[in-house]
C-alpha cells in the first residue's frame, strides 16, 4: 500500500516512469531533419563499433609471431572461441570453414554493440533499436535459405518442411506447422530475442535511475532512504545486464550456426 500511495503523497508532478519513446533519441544530422534522416545515436554507435573492432583485430594480427604477445593472444583466443566452440562443434568438422568469417563478424559486431549499453556515456545498446536486430537476422535468414537452395536445389523446401517418418494422416498438419515455425516464426524470434532483451535491460536501468532520482530528490523525508535501495538494485541489474549482453551475442551466433547446419544437413 505504501508503494501505491507514494506518488500521490509526494509533489503534484508525481513520478514519471521512463517510456519506450525515451529510447529513440533525437537525430544528430541537422540537415534534412524534417524528413527524418534516421541517423541517431545508435547509428553513430554502429559506426564506432565497426571502427573499434577493425582497429582491435588489425592491431592484434599485424605482427603475427610464433610466440604471441598479449594482444595477439587475446585476438587469437577470441577468434578460436567462435571458430571452435561455435563453428566446428555445431556445423561439423567437414564443412564449417566457409562460415567462420560470417559467424566471427556477427559475434563481435553484436558483442561490442551490446556492451555499449554498459559503457558510461555511450550507455545505449544499439540493438535496442529494432532496425539493427531486423537487419542482422535478415542477413542470416537470406544466408541459410540460399545455402539450402544451393546445396539441395528446389527440393530444399520439401526437405525443410516435410519431416521423415511421419504417418500420412497427420502429414498436412505437420507441414503447415513446419512452414510457420521455420519460415515465419524463426526470423522473427531470432531478431526480436536480441532486440527485446537489450530493450528490456536498458529500460530496467533507466527505471531504477529515474526512481532513485525521484526518491532522493522529490519524495517525502521518510521515503528518501529508499533511494539507496533502488540504487543498489540498479547496480545489481547493471552487472546482470553485462552477463545478458554477452550471452545474447553468443545465443545469436549459436542459432545462426544451427540454422546453417540445418540447411546443409542431408535430412530433416
Amino acid at each position: 500500500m505504501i508503494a501505491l500511495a507514494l506518488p500521490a503523497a509526494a509533489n503534484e508532478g508525481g513520478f514519471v516512469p521512463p517510456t519506450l519513446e525515451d529510447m529513440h533519441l533525437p537525430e544528430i544530422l541537422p540537415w534534412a531533419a524534417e524528413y527524418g534522416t534516421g541517423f541517431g545515436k545508435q547509428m553513430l554507435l554502429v559506426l564506432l563499433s565497426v571502427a573499434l573492432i577493425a582497429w582491435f583485430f588489425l592491431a592484434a594480427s599485424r605482427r603475427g609471431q610464433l610466440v604471441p604477445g598479449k594482444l595477439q593472444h587475446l585476438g587469437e583466443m577470441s577468434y578460436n572461441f567462435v571458430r571452435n566452440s561455435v563453428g566446428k562443434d555445431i556445423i561439423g568438422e567437414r564443412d564449417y570453414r566457409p562460415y567462420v568469417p560470417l559467424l566471427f563478424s556477427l559475434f563481435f559486431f553484436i558483442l561490442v554493440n551490446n556492451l555499449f549499453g554498459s559503457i558510461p556515456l555511450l550507455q545505449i545498446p544499439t540493438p535496442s533499436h529494432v532496425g539493427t536486430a531486423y537487419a542482422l537476422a535478415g542477413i542470416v535468414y537470406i544466408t541459410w535459405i540460399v545455402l539450402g537452395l544451393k546445396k539441395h536445389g528446389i527440393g530444399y523446401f520439401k526437405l525443410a518442411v516435410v519431416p521423415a517418418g511421419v504417418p500420412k494422416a497427420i502429414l498436412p498438419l505437420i507441414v503447415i506447422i513446419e512452414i510457420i515455425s521455420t519460415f515465419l516464426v524463426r526470423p522473427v524470434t531470432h531478431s526480436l530475442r536480441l532486440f527485446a532483451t537489450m530493450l528490456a535491460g536498458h529500460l530496467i536501468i533507466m527505471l531504477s535511475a529515474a526512481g532513485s532520482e525521484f526518491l532522493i530528490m522529490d519524495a517525502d523525508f521518510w521515503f528518501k532512504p529508499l533511494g539507496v535501495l533502488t540504487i543498489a538494485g540498479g547496480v545489481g541489474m547493471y552487472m546482470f545486464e553485462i552477463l545478458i549482453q554477452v550471452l545474447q551475442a553468443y545465443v545469436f551466433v549459436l542459432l545462426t550456426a544451427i540454422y546453417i547446419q540445418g540447411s546443409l544437413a542431408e535430412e530433416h
Partner: protein
Amino acid sequence: MEGNINLVGYGLSAIGGAIGVGLVFAAYINGVARQPEAQRVLQPIAFLGLALTEALAILGLVFAFVL
C-alpha cells in the same frame, strides 16, 4: 490507478517461459554434474533449449506492446 492490463497478462505468461528455462538449465546442470566431460556437448544444446523456450516469452512481450 491507470495502466494497461496487457502488462499483467504478459507477467502471467512469462511464468511459463521462466519455468521452461529453469527446467532446461536444471537438466543441463544435472548432466554436467553426473558427467563433467560431457559439458562441451551439452552446452550448445542447453543454450538452444534456452533460445527456443525464450521465444514464447519474447512473442508475449511483443504482443503486450503491440495489441
